[in-house]
């Protein structure tokens, strides 16, 4: 298969179309059912891993502590990490934007005259659109995680950060393999399908010059990159090709090697309800003298892409504590119903709603922070204690207030700060404030509204699409209580 023949996921998908796409998803009974089933499964499996709430909270506090401790000294840790990696012979690259990161990849590929890369699961590589960019320059970048591979063959996108292909059935996969893999029989036996995928990808592992991976945790103390996985493709990508290029967000660093332990204790339990993954792969530099495998050359690309914006304000910094476990989406009633593809972002669900505005600006992502009932299920399960509902509220505020309009103005505007502000909404809340902060005015309103309830419109926008109209009661509580008090001797009903 040549790079040109690989279907490419539609790069134009954008969070601006969230409402349209979620509308379609809500009416797709099959999709609804498969997400509900998958999320119920993951929720149940996670619950089995944390039977004791107190024990969970103790571990979660430690995980939160590790991440906050690292973020509090982030620039220092990054400098130490860079120094350690440089000593080990790893080239460290800094990328402000996805374009920067892709250029670095391309430079490396060109230097090695590579036309094929094999890639382990990496959400940051999705974030920069690596496959697409490499294909545009004649470099084939093959996904090797089974779920991602299926999607890549089909030109589809991941709908979940841990289980990317949960929206595909085994029949879908059978058809995709049959169509795209030479000699693949049409089988919907899952064992056989995985065997087909394994065989097809073996050739790629053996021939690719460059292996690409994400990183789960980086250790400043030792220069270690920790990768967490079940399939073994991550180990192959980082052991077989001559060159290993790791890419990750610059926030993923921790101070000491032992700090990885609580995070690793939390990650697979929160993600898939497993106590551990098959592999915890700790990589500290390239192949050493005398070793027979492992990459001879190693690169680490550290991507900013808006992370420093989240970092710079205390109220958004906790966003960067995230370890990408996906628990928040598994427990999210909105995600469960609209599915991951509706978001039009690399990271869907609650984590997507709080990180995407920093990566893409508040304007194009405007519908994501509001697409939450603030039920709090995400915050309950987040293994590093990110107050996700609070962040959503703060993003709603930032979208609706420019720096000048903010009461406690931030030092610098977020990208798209104030861009969601609409005169009508501002006016409505101003009117609401005047009414509800003046007792006499409100009392008059509470007297009037029940008496004018016959004027209540039968159509109340989105509310009445699925509900009867909201009408004031015939008499307000305050009136009823006043009357009750006046006629004390009369029983209440």
């Amino acid at each position, binding site marked *: 298969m040549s790079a040109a023949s690989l279907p490419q996921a539609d790069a134009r998908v954008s969070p601006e179309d969230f409402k349209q796409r979620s509308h379609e998803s809500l009416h797709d009974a099959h999709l609804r059912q498969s997400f509900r089933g998958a999320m119920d499964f993951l929720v149940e499996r996670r619950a089995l891993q944390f039977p004791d709430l107190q024990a969970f909270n103790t571990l979660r506090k430690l995980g939160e502590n590790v991440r906050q401790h690292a973020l509090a000294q982030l620039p220092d840790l990054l400098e130490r990490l860079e120094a350690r990696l440089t000593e080990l012979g790893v080239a460290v690259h800094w990328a402000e934007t996805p374009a920067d990161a892709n250029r670095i990849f391309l430079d490396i590929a060109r230097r090695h005259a590579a036309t094929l890369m094999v890639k382990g699961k990496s959400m940051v590589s999705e974030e920069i659109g690596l496959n697409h960019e490499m294909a545009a320059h004649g470099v084939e970048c093959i996904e090797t995680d089974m779920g991602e591979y299926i999607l890549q063959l089909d030109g589809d996108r991941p709908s979940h950060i841990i289980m990317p292909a949960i929206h595909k059935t085994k029949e879908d996969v059978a058809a995709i393999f049959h169509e795209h893999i030479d000699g693949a029989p049409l089988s919907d036996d899952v064992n056989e399908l995985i065997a087909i995928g394994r065989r097809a990808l073996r050739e790629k592992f053996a021939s690719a010059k460059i292996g690409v991976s994400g990183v789960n945790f980086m250790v400043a103390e030792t220069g270690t990159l920790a990768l967490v996985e079940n399939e073994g493709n991550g180990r192959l990508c980082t052991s077989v090709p001559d060159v290993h290029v790791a890419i990750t967000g610059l926030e993923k660093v921790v101070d000491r090697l032992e700090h990885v332990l609580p995070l690793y204790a939390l990650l697979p339990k929160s993600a898939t309800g497993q106590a551990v993954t098959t592999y915890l792969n700790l990589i500290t530099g390239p192949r050493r003298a005398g070793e027979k495998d492992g990459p001879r050359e190693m690169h680490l690309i550290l991507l900013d892409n808006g992370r420093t914006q989240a970092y710079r304000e205390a109220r958004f910094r906790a966003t960067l504590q995230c370890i990408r476990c996906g628990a928040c989406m598994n427990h999210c009633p909105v995600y469960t119903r609209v599915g991951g593809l509706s978001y039009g972002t690399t990271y869907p669900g609650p984590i997507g709603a709080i990180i995407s505005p920093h990566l893409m600006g508040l304007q194009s992502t405007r519908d994501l922070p509001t697409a939450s009932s603030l039920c*709090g299920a995400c915050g309950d399960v987040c293994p590093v204690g990110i107050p996700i509902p609070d962040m959503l*509220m703060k993003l709603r505020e930032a979208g609706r207030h420019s720096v000048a309009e903010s009461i406690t103005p931030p030092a610098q505007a977020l990208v798209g700060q104030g861009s969601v502000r609409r005169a009508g909404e501002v006016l409505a809340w101003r009117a609401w404030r005047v009414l509800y902060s003046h007792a006499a005015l409100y009392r008059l309103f509470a007297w009037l509204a029940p008496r004018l309830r016959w004027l209540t419109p039968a159509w109340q926008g989105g*509310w009445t*699409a699925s509900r009867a109209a909201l009408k004031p009661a015939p008499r307000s509580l305050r009136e009823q209580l006043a009357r009750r008090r006046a006629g004390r001797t009369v029983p209440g009903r």
Partner: protein
Amino acid sequence: MSASPHAAGSTETRQVYLFATCVIDLFAPQAGVDVVEVLERLGVTVHFPAAQTCCGQPAYTTGFPEEARKVAAAQLDLFPEPWPVIVPSGSCGGMLKQHWPRLFADDPARRVQAESIAARTVEFTDYLVNTLGFRLDAPAASGAPLRVALHTSCSARREMGTLGCGRALLERLPGVERVEHGHEAECCGFGGTFSVKHPEISAAMAADKLDALTASGCESFVSADCGCLLNLNLSLEKRGAALRGQHIASLVRARMDGAAS
């Protein structure tokens, strides 16, 4: 009347404030009347400061904290005595208890007031169960058997921690059997302005909740939050379904009436 408050501690008159919430005041006043009625029958003197309006939550959660602050500020002077502030809503209770102190973090004088109120804020079922030790001691004949489902709002569950109180309260009503429904811990889809900003998603959540409640075989359902109840009842009305929910205080009062008759 055979309802006895089993009040723990002293017998002196208990005085409480009622912060009834704007939703109850205009849209669900019967819930408020029933709250007052139940408390008074249990020997509690209820003070309803007439100048109260709203906790400010709608603006707060929509991204207009300054509007919320002004509205909340107008409530701060209304609860001067050291009495508990009873809130018949986990959601508004959560606003008073968890968010008011933060809302006034930069305003020392108001913060003291907000913190005092936060410390005294008690959700209605919590007050009944844990402060009054309420239990309806009724002869077996009182009140027909009733199967009810309990919808606990997300804020009641997470910000007020009153899931157990609602369950305990139902257990203390003889003849009332609580039935579970599927995905009971899941949100009903209300979420304040979420229900109008994303009406389709909100409707899908409400529809699933209604399906689960209907499938539970309950005769009616209760909640301690009128926001959820309006969302669910008006959705049921639109469906043309007969099932309805009521505030848990209304059920308690009805069972007291049954016990008294």
